[in-house]
């Protein structure tokens, strides 16, 4: 059973997935950030691979990616950093990124290497369903990686069920059609999540986009298995001086 499945078997409520950008704030801070997230109560780590043109992300995550790229982060360097992560990191780790850098690395080589260093799953927002089914999905599955599709309030039910069927680990529910880091109207989000709950999906549902503090985390946890926080944590890291202190404070506030 995959680490993600085991996690949700043990805990199906208030699962907290925190996004951080690999190579941010420093090139070699990746593991420190991950260890700090684990120590302070994160249940899943979503590690973003920086890209020059991250279409689904807002300003905050894009600028952290630019810092990481300027620091010299590449997929190759990331895998070198992650080679020893399973000595200390026991919670699930998923890689989030865009297709182009992965294609240049080699899609199959990327999946093999990700599995080898102990990555559990992938979130690739610009890998479409058609290309997943006809080309890339097989490679992902053959290498034992979970694949997490995004769904939005506009995703029609038939498609939603298909994306749920093809996803393993969890399903990523985007709280509303938007890029990351935007404020949301949570009354609408609640209605959407209630609808998702009523569909009795195969996968646990984690809610992302607009989750930034205790209030928003609690709000979406009422109707889902947990949430993903990204931009708010990156903001905290940008302002903080010490990774461990910043992470401890941030997660304490969210999970209190």
């Amino acid at each position: 059973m995959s680490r993600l499945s085991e996690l949700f078997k043990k805990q199906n409520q208030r699962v907290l997935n925190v996004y951080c950008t690999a190579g941010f704030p420093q090139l070699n801070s990746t593991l420190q950030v991950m260890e700090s997230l684990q120590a302070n109560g994160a249940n899943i780590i979503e590690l973003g691979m920086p890209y020059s043109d991250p279409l689904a992300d807002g300003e905050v995550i894009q600028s952290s990616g630019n810092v990481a790229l300027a620091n010299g982060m590449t997929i190759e360097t990331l895998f070198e950093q992650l080679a020893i992560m399973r000595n200390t990191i026991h919670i699930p780790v998923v890689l989030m990124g865009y297709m182009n850098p992965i294609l240049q690395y080699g899609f199959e080589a990327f999946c093999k290497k990700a599995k080898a260093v102990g990555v559990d799953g992938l979130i690739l927002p610009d890998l479409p369903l058609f290309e997943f089914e006809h080309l890339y999905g097989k490679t992902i599955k053959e290498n034992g990686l979970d694949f997490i599709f995004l769904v939005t309030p506009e995703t029609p039910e038939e498609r939603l069920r298909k994306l749920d069927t093809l996803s393993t680990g969890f399903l990523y529910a985007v709280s509303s059609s938007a890029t990351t880091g935007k404020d949301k109207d949570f009354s609408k989000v609640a209605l959407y999540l209630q609808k998702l709950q009523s569909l009795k999906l195969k996968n646990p549902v984690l809610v992302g986009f607009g989750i930034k503090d205790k209030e928003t985390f609690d709000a979406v946890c009422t109707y889902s298995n947990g949430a993903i926080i990204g931009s708010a944590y990156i903001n905290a890291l940008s302002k903080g001086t010490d990774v461990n202190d910043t992470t401890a404070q941030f997660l304490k506030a969210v999970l209190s």
Partner: protein
Amino acid sequence: MHSFNKSINYQDPSAEGYYGDFGGAYIPEMLYGNVETLKTQYLQIMQDPEFQREFHALLKDYVGRPTPLFYAERLSKEIGTQIYLKREDLCHTGAHKINNTIGQILLAHRLGKTKIIAETGAGQHGVATATVCALKGLECVVYMGEKDIERQAPNVARMKMLGAKVVPATSGSKTLKDATNEAIRAWINEPNETHYIIGSVVGPHPYPDMVARFQSVISDEIRKQLKEKTGSELPTHVVACVGGGSNAAGAFYHFLNEETVDLVAVEAAGHGVNSGMSAATTQLGKPGILHGSKSILMQTEDGQVVEPHSISAGLDYPGIGPLHAFLYESKRGTFTSATDEEALQWAFHLSEIEGIIPALETAHAFAILPKMNFKPNDVVVVCLSGRGDKDLATYMQVMDMKK
């Protein structure tokens, strides 16, 4: 990895938008609804007789089509061949871009959209979009790189006068690529009421095909006009500049399946293909994904998109439309390039020998003519995609330096 089914008819990509291995719709789920609506409806809407009637009526009475096909006598003599200029510079707003925006505004109207967003490089597409929004009374927001806002000031002023809001793109290289990112993000954030009018044959399927079809009026007219002037519908060569590739797609379209016609695409070499300051995508790029489609892309070994350089804002783009990537890969097209300096030189030269001041983008297409070894009986059509008014500041600097 195996590849998708090869589409061998250059005019019709596969159902999922592939020309050979290039194309597709690599978009986040947040855009799925909008893109899917377009994908299932664009052909039906475009083929509707009432749509066609309205589209062609506006092209005729508002844009001023058909644009002339002009035999350039002095240029022909100098190059030693027969050269015809397709005068897209005479379109309302000064470039071919409006052929597409007229089509897309009518389409947006039929889809019930109330707001239009667009990206622009040189500002020609922004002006063409602002124009049709004014014509149809729709709200218009144009995303433009901060650097391009500086170098294309007249077009920024025109967009504002036409009632559009111009939003500077301040990320990355602050040019067309970044303006496109911002426009796509804006679309993600307001998907329901908004239609995104992409200005080139780039972006997720169905945009490359849709824009090519709207621009194909260029080659449709060339065939008829050439028949009248030479007795044959077919030239030996069609030459066009390529950034994303919309004027080239339009000028090539009705010749794509005519094997005897050499399709010549001219990219911007900037300071020189190997200078590190270039936008010659097919020479410098590798297959990759940008702005929702798989194509040829200028990028680092790690797959980060490279910031291109061209003196012309409209060609300053690190990618190329998937149709052009396929024309390049299949060798159906001849791909060549011209430098900043050659383009500038030819902007002046064309002005002096034919009395036509071309846009800097367009000047690239002329710059390769002396290098092509045309035969005296060849019939060469050059797509004169835009006029040079917007580039006068650059041209004035050159004249000042010559003093």
